[in-house]
């Protein structure tokens, strides 16, 4: 390619980066600007400080984080062995499992809520309204995304051969899962967990319809009372989700870089 062609390509690339970056960052900058407005055009962190001083908000944050963590763990416990099993012992069940996992994406939240209300009315009474029962429905909600991540991870390794190699060396199924499969799915498991946490942090409809005060529900209520604090909390939640996603990208990216370098080294040697 000529120097002029390369320069044109470079300009196009930067233009795309600036347009996309602007599209994504401008709302965040606007949120930061709005949430730090003080009196008479000054800047103030009052709205951010208020986050820590509102007991309802703090409780909602803690509750939502607990729900997110439990959802991620529950999803992994349910999904990793199930999908792995379809790869190892029941390949014919791959499609049905995938179909079941994708269902929540096709069913509107309101329909899901109507369906689960009878069960949740029992659960709510049994747990005296503990919002952690939302974990069950949240696990269902994250299935489509988590399934994709774990399935992609399993496709990237020869799971059947690795399991058979471990079995021939004397490993029982639990060891195969924990010592061989899970460590090699680290990236996929982390990605599925992060997606699940991000989804739970942003989930509003079902919590609201079931009358549980999660972060998004409280932000919504706050927005009606104090728009500045609501925007500050929203921005904080977004930043938290971004940090999580960048964290996983860094971990996975480090692994990929190392792989590329060492493959080159092996080829040279």
């Amino acid at each position, binding site marked *: 390619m000529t120097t002029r062609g390369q320069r044109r390509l470079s300009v196009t690339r930067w233009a795309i980066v600036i347009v996309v970056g602007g599209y994504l960052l401008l709302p965040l900058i606007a949120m930061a600007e709005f949430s730090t407005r003080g009196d008479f055009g000054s800047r103030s962190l009052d709205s951010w400080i208020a986050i820590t001083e509102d007991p309802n908000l703090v409780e909602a944050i803690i509750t939502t984080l607990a729900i997110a963590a439990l959802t991620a763990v529950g999803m992994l416990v349910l999904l990793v062995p199930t999908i792995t099993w379809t790869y190892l012992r029941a390949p014919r069940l791959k499609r049905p499992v995938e179909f079941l996992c994708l269902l929540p994406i096709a069913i509107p939240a309101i329909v899901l809520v109507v369906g689960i209300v009878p069960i949740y009315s029992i659960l709510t009474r049994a747990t005296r309204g503990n919002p952690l029962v939302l974990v069950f429905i949240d696990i269902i909600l994250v299935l489509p995304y988590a399934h994709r991540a774990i399935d992609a991870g399993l496709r990237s390794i020869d799971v059947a051969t690795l399991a*058979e190699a471990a079995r021939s060396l*004397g*490993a029982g199924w639990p060891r195969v899962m924990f010592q*061989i499969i899970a460590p090699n799915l680290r990236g996929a498991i982390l990605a599925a967990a992060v997606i699940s946490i991000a989804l739970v942090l942003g989930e509003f409809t079902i919590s609201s319809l079931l009358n549980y005060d999660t972060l998004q529900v409280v932000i919504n209520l706050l927005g009606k009372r104090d728009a500045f604090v609501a925007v500050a909390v929203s921005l904080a939640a977004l930043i938290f989700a971004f940090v999580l996603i960048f964290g996983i990208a860094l971990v996975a990216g480090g692994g990929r870089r190392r792989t590329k370098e*060492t*493959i080159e080294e092996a080829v040279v040697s």
Partner: protein
Amino acid sequence: MTISTTGAGPTGRAGVAVQLLDLHRSYGAVHALDGLTLELAPGELVALLGPSGCGKTTALRALAGLDDPDTGRIVVDGRDLTNVSANHRDMGMVFQAYSLFPNMTARDNVAYGLRLRGVDTQSRRRRADEMLELVGLSAQGGRYPYQLSGGQQQRIALARALAIQPKVLLLDEPLSALDAKVRRNLREEIRRIQIAIGTTTLFVTHDQEEALALGDRVGVMAAGRLEQIAPPAELYDRPATAFVAEFVGLTNRLEGTVSDGTIELVGQRIPLLAGSAGPGRVTALVRPESVRLAPEAGATSHVIAVSFLGSLCRVQVALPDGALVVAQTSAAEGTAMSPGTAVRVTIDPSPIFATPA
């Protein structure tokens, strides 16, 4: 030649006898194993050879416990293992696909089986280093699988399989994914190590050169059955069935007439192997190296093409009746001929196999 192992090699365990008795295994309408019976003597390396889908890998997987036969028995060292799960069979296996655990270094891979057996850290490290030295990769112990070439990975897989001192070593086309040179080197290395350790070994391959070069005996399988099992030279020179004759080595198919246990081919009478078809019109299976060519003015056969293969040549010749025959000659003889050269064709008088025409 069958190796009898009287003492333990570096694995510390002598070979054991293995018996696969009347194994049947079906996948729907497909009979992968159809009454397979195969016996391995202690310390012997048997190569199972056959086309894709003949059941050789199913047989190996049944022995490993990775596939359950529908009926039949698997006896190893006098103990019935038919219903024993794979992780309790004490067998080392090397797979066709690179099967090293990506999350472990080469040394940890080799030591993994020992870790499962509760061997202390120091002993398993020492043992892993011994095995790495055995396969010539001592310096690569700290590397991860993605830092190793395909040949190195298969060597490590071999070391890992041997580290647990298996009763039986199972090799499932371990060289298939490697390039020709690495393949040849590793093949020789596998043989060297197997002779050194004396572990009874079942080697599955679809590559006849590999099977003939490695096996004490070679078993040829077709449609889930063992067609013939014999030392390589016997299998090649005295095939028991038409399938074996055609599958092992290159073969010319020449029509001739059988009478009195001999067949008339290119004006000669050649004795037939037991099991051959006849009397009457049959198709004789003749090895290219059994065909002799002599340039002779006025001869009625003509060279069609000459293929130079380094130390030897393959010469394609048209017989007077229009049939084509391939002869294998030395490079000097082959290159002295060219398309159109008139040649006299003769066939070695050693017994050959014939099938119904």
